[in-house]
């Protein structure tokens, strides 16, 4: 049978605050175990949590950037369960009245724009970390992470394919980075994803039974986990079976999901309002103040790039992936006055070299002014596009500017008619047979002569001039 997948995602994004959500311990990654804790985050009796103002500001900012309604009154709740990484026996989270609700983001898949609803975004605290010793009969607990502020972003079940799910996650990550509330680094576990997926017969409007795949931590794994689940559930349904509503985990070494039976009965969390924290009441004034700090977001920037610089949609999309990349582009485009050429160089040579070394644009040895300088030299005819590639690689290696490299290596383009004519004469003299064939009608040989002339000039001859002069000379 033909099925349609119905996918909803829950993303946990760590907020980039200096301190934890309810105490003044530093939020740190990779520190020595249990050196960033205090009586509040290790759940000593009698302590009281005090909310981090920055965390509230960041979640409101996220809500505004994703078109959410900001609830004027919001409150915390206790989610009760036992686990060794959860010192209090409950997690402070939100249940009724989350900070943000009813938002949306737009994604583009296969040229189609789709709107993905955001059900809610709420604040909660992270748990500690368990270390499982292989063989032994004990586990170790590090509570440095306990109490780190998280935002849980819950999407509507609006996603239909693994590609849409991945695109949605990328868009979300891009927005969080633009507004600087989370570095959304999946490798560090600062952007984790739970997947809800069910199948239904194509065309149906009711929902099937869903499975939840917990804690998937890379875009690739999300894609793989979804592909596997779609296959698995389709097979069950085709055989007349029923999908079991359960929590599953993804095994990235085998690209399969498997049932996580141990936690099944723990799903009764008995939420109740957190008595240790008072409500968050947000005024319009506060909302307006935060709104003013939101920069131009990826979608708006993309359409502006198309409008202002005449870029194709694809270029504009790629160049607005991060704020730093877009800023680099705008600087180089402005300085060179040739926006499309800048885009070509950035998306071609620059990305190729940077990706090979896994570097971010901020670390590029070629700064925007240097790229613009080189592009200007091409425009002015000082160097050919071909020579520019050599210059570019040298710039990348040495960090020198194009003019210096061209001067040092004598790469200036030869646009002197006399000099080029001399080379052409030599090339024709050296290849009498090809010349005769050409004159006899084998016009394809023209390319051969261009190649020979360029080679003889060590690539420095102005290609346009070579073309013109060669045509004349060969026909004489």
């Amino acid at each position, binding site marked *: 049978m033909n099925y349609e997948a119905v996918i909803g995602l829950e993303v946990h994004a760590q907020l980039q*605050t*200096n*301190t934890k959500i309810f105490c*003044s*311990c*530093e939020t740190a990654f990779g520190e*020595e*175990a*249990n*050196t*960033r*804790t*205090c*009586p509040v985050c*290790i759940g000593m009796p009698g302590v009281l949590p*005090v*909310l*981090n*103002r*920055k*965390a*509230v500001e960041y979640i409101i900012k996220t809500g505004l950037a994703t078109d959410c309604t900001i609830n004027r*009154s919001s*409150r915390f709740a206790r989610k*009760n369960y*036992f*686990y*060794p990484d959860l010192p209090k026996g409950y997690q402070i989270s939100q249940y009724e*009245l989350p900070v943000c609700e009813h938002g949306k983001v737009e994604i583009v898949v296969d040229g189609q724009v789709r709107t993905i609803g955001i059900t809610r975004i709420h604040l909660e605290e992270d748990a500690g970390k*368990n*270390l*499982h*010793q292989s063989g*032994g*009969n*004990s*586990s*170790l*607990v*590090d*509570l440095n992470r306990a109490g780190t502020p998280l935002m849980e972003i819950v999407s509507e079940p609006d996603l239909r394919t693994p590609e849409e799910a991945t695109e949605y996650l990328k868009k979300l990550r891009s927005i969080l980075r633009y507004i600087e509330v989370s570095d959304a680094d999946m490798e560090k576990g600062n952007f984790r994803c739970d997947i809800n997926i069910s199948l239904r017969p194509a065309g149906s409007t009711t929902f099937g039974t869903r499975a939840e795949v917990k804690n998937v931590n890379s875009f690739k794994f999300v894609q793989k986990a979804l592909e596997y689940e779609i296959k698995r559930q389709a097979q069950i349904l085709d055989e007349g079976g029923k999908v079991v509503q359960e929590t599953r985990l993804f095994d990235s070494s085998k690209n399969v999901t498997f049932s*996580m039976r*141990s936690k099944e*009965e*723990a799903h*009764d969390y*008995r939420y109740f*309002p957190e*008595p240790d*924290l*008072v*409500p*968050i*009441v947000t005024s319009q004034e506060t909302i307006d103040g935060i709104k003013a700090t939101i920069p131009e977001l990826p979608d708006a920037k993309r359409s502006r790039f198309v409008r202002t610089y005449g870029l194709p949609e694809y270029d504009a999309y790629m160049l607005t992936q991060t704020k730093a990349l877009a800023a680099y582009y705008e600087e180089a485009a402005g300085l060179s006055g040739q926006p499309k050429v800048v885009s070509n160089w950035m998306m071609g040579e620059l990305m190729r070299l940077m990706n090979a070394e896994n570097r971010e644009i901020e670390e590029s040895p070629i700064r925007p002014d240097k790229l613009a300088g080189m592009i200007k030299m091409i425009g002015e005819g000082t160097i050919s596009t071909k020579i520019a590639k050599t210059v570019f690689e040298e710039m990348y290696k040495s960090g020198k500017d194009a003019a210096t490299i061209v001067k040092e290596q004598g790469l200036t383009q030869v646009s002197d008619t006399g000099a080029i004519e001399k080379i052409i004469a030599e090339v024709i003299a050296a290849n009498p047979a090809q010349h005769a064939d050409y004159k006899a009608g084998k016009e394809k040989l023209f390319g051969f002569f261009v190649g020979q002339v360029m080679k003889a000039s060590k690539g420095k001859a102005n290609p346009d001039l070579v073309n013109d002069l060669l045509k004349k000379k060969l026909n004489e």
Partner: protein
Amino acid sequence: MKISQQEVEHVAKLARLELSDQEKAKLTDQLSNILTYVEKLNELDTKGVEPTAHVLDMKNVMRDDAVEPSLSQERALANAPEKAAGHYKVPKIIE
């Protein structure tokens, strides 16, 4: 409001409490009485009354995002029944 013994057993399990049959019967009875007592509140007409988020009339109690010293590892672990390599040591978690 009546509560069943099965419900008592479920709640006890979630709270990791081990109860004898005698305790189960006694608690079923007591919890039923408590719920019946609280049920009286349902007689009130609460239309137009804002739900109480907190019994204290306070809001927006927050702190600045400024780091203060944490406990040393030694102090953090001082009350732990068992520890190893700077960690709390707990019975093996079966996953």
